């Protein structure tokens, strides 16, 4: 039986575009603030769980070890976890099981990110998350993935861009009173978002949370320790995590099933049977505005496609029935990747204690859910937190309303215990910093195509598109693989699939990976291949950007045979196909 575990302290740095602090110094500022907030010292900490996103951001290999002293891990059991953007919430889960298992009584969970070191743009560090053989030759930009998912979500539910943009507005307004926020703006409007530069349609500049530097830490303790440390612990009532396939072009881009799976796991543990009634406050992951809606649905708080309507009705506002991202989220506070996820845990801690100051949601929220998302947009990490007084198995706690304030409101701490360090560096200070060193990791790679994709590429050279059949589940897998990840058995045979398909989703991309403008927009698309159960990423041609539609029938346009080399580029592009044949 797992021990009961609580969060008893939290601290964070300001999120800034570029911090003067090193990663270690940021981690220390946040960790020290978290310990100070509950009057603990480093001696009280039994173990440290740390997270930080790719090493390539800081340009420090073994970044976990590098950051460990700033996270208070000197001479202590220490581990770094990493699940991409899901890392921040996951490190709280890791702290939870370190304590729940009885291995430690007090754990410091720390998340740090310093993205400003990467030149010319941190996106360069992300390029290899695309399949190096099947996708990278197409010249992808990380924004493609998000733009493609957002477009699919908007198309299937017939959403207007305004439905999406309202989330960016809500969050940047929510962050206006946040002392650690980079992007708070009380007077921003939907028109501002719709008028911002189009990066990869439908993604515009203000739909995205920009890169940032920052750190967050929380103190996690066993029940016994928690009762000793504070009279207002916030319990970690449920945790869940789940991963979808890396074959993202085979995935349902409309509904994040992996988030739902993680949420079910966490709700089950927390005794939450009716999430919409029993969860009073949500901190879903919002690196893009559409993701908050997507994730609220994945968290089973709204029916698929219904979160935008709830947003329109004010349900998600700070004073709404289900405040969502009252912190301001990544869109408002900033997006130092791993730190931003743990910030959501810290926010629930402050909100559920009544310590959130200007950001405090009205009423007495008793239970909240925090969620993050990442890896190749495939992981869901979920934590359910509740304050004392919540019956763990109660199926129908009333949602918090302002009517209940007088009876049960908690004492409000006017000055939340934030670290207020996190010193921004201007461009000039960054360029002119004494002692600064520029360095490129001069590593080169050769990626093998492997067995299945090697054969697929041979097929392309012959003008064939090959899939691989799994008789276990009856699917024809494109891209092909030698094993079926669902049945976990060897696939059975090669199948020629059609050279036609339909546009599952598309984007109109105006920027390269380093965010420099493109002369001609690119039209990346996920193509569902006829005669298969899958599809792949490619680009569209012989079509005006404005004429592309989700669901449009398309066909492969091959390079002349003599020019084919056994590459994904042997298909020059897909073009619209006359249907009815």
């Amino acid at each position: 039986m797992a021990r009961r575990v609580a969060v008893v302290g939290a601290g964070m740095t300001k999120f800034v575009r570029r911090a003067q602090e090193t990663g270690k110094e940021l981690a220390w500022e946040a960790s020290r603030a978290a310990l100070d907030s509950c009057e603990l010292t480093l001696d009280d900490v039994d173990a440290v769980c740390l997270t930080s996103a790719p090493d390539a951001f800081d340009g420090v290999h073994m970044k976990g070890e590098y950051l460990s002293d700033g996270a208070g891990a000197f001479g202590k059991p220490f581990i770094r976890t990493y699940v991409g953007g899901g890392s921040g919430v996951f490190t709280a889960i890791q702290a939870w099981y370190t304590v729940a298992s009885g291995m430690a009584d007090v754990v410091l969970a720390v998340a740090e990110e310093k993205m400003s070191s990467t030149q010319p743009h941190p996106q360069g560090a992300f390029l290899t998350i695309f399949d190096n053989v099947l996708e990278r030759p197409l010249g992808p930009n990380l924004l493609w993935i998000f733009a493609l998912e957002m477009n699919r979500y908007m198309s299937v539910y017939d959403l207007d861009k305004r439905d999406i943009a309202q989330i960016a507005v809500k969050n940047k307004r929510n962050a206006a009173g946040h002392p650690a926020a980079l992007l708070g703006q009380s007077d921003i409007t939907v028109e501002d978002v719709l008028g911002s530069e189009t990066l990869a349609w439908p993604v515009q500049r203000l739909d995205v949370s920009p890169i940032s530097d920052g750190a967050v830490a929380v103190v996690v303790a066993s029940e016994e320790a928690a009762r000793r440390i504070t009279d207002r612990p916030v319990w970690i009532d449920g945790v869940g995590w789940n991963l979808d396939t890396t074959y993202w072009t085979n995935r349902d881009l409309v509904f994040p099933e992996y988030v739902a799976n993680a949420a079910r796991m966490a709700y089950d543990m927390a005794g939450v049977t009716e999430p919409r009634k029993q969860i009073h406050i949500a901190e879903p992951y919002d690196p893009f505005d559409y993701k908050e809606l997507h994730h609220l649905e994945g968290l089973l708080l709204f029916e698929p496609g219904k979160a935008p309507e709830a947003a329109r009705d004010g349900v998600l506002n700070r004073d709404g029935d289900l405040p969502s991202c009252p912190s301001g989220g990544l869109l408002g506070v900033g997006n130092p990747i791993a730190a931003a996820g743990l910030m959501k845990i810290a926010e629930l801690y402050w909100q559920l204690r009544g310590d959130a100051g200007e950001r405090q949601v009205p009423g007495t929220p008793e239970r909240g859910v925090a969620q993050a998302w990442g890896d190749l947009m495939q992981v869901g990490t979920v934590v359910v937190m509740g304050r004392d007084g919540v019956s763990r198995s109660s199926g129908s706690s009333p949602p918090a309303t302002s009517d209940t304030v007088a009876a049960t409101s908690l004492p409000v701490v006017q000055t939340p215990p934030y670290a207020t360090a996190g010193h921004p560096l201007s461009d000039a200070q960054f360029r002119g910093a004494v002692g600064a060193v520029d360095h490129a990791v001069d590593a080169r790679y050769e990626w093998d195509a492997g067995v299945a994709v090697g054969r697929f590429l041979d097929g392309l050279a012959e003008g064939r598109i090959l899939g691989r059949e799994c008789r276990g589940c009856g699917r024809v897998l494109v891209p092909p693989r030698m094993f079926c990840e669902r049945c976990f058995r060897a696939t059975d045979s090669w199948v020629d699939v059609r050279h036609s398909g339909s546009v599952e989703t598309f984007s109109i991309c105006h920027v390269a990976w380093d965010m420099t403008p493109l002369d001609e927009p690119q039209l990346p698309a996920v193509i569902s291949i006829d005669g298969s159960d899958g599809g792949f990423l490619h680009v569209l041609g012989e079509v005006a950007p404005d004429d592309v539609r989700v669901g449009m029938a398309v066909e492969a346009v091959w390079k002349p045979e003599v020019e084919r080399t056994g590459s994904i580029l042997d298909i020059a592009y897909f073009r619209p196909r006359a249907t009815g044949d």
Partner: protein
Amino acid sequence: MLEKLERPDEVRRWKGRIPVSHRYTPGVAGDVFFTALRDRGVLLGSRCDSCDYTYVPARLFCERCFAELSADAEVGPGGRLVSFTISYTGLEGEPLEQPVAIGLVRPDGADAAIVHRIVETGDEPLEIGQRMEVVVKPDEERTGSIHDIDGFRPTG
């Protein structure tokens, strides 16, 4: 089940790299350290009284007790050789015309040691524990870099 590769030389490979470089700035304490090195030619450390430990280069915090530290403990210029190695090959494994001596030196007043080149070695063999001294470039040549230090030289 898996098809065996009969012509491994024909395996399809894609070459590539991760196209980023990094700009490392030295941080809050590092800024003070490099400024002092450039302007005054001295090594600054940070002293934690409660841990009875002096770090060098300077640090913003004590990793042992988490106290905030100031970058104001001047250490050196003398010190002791903690360990050394003599490298006869370069990064790519190529032989060096002139072997390079690398030392770990604990400056006087510090508990931590600094890694740097050993210069002016002379004919005497290096000995662990021997006295060393930091060799700093002339005022006008210092830019605020670890290369403002030429290295450490034996003094006896």
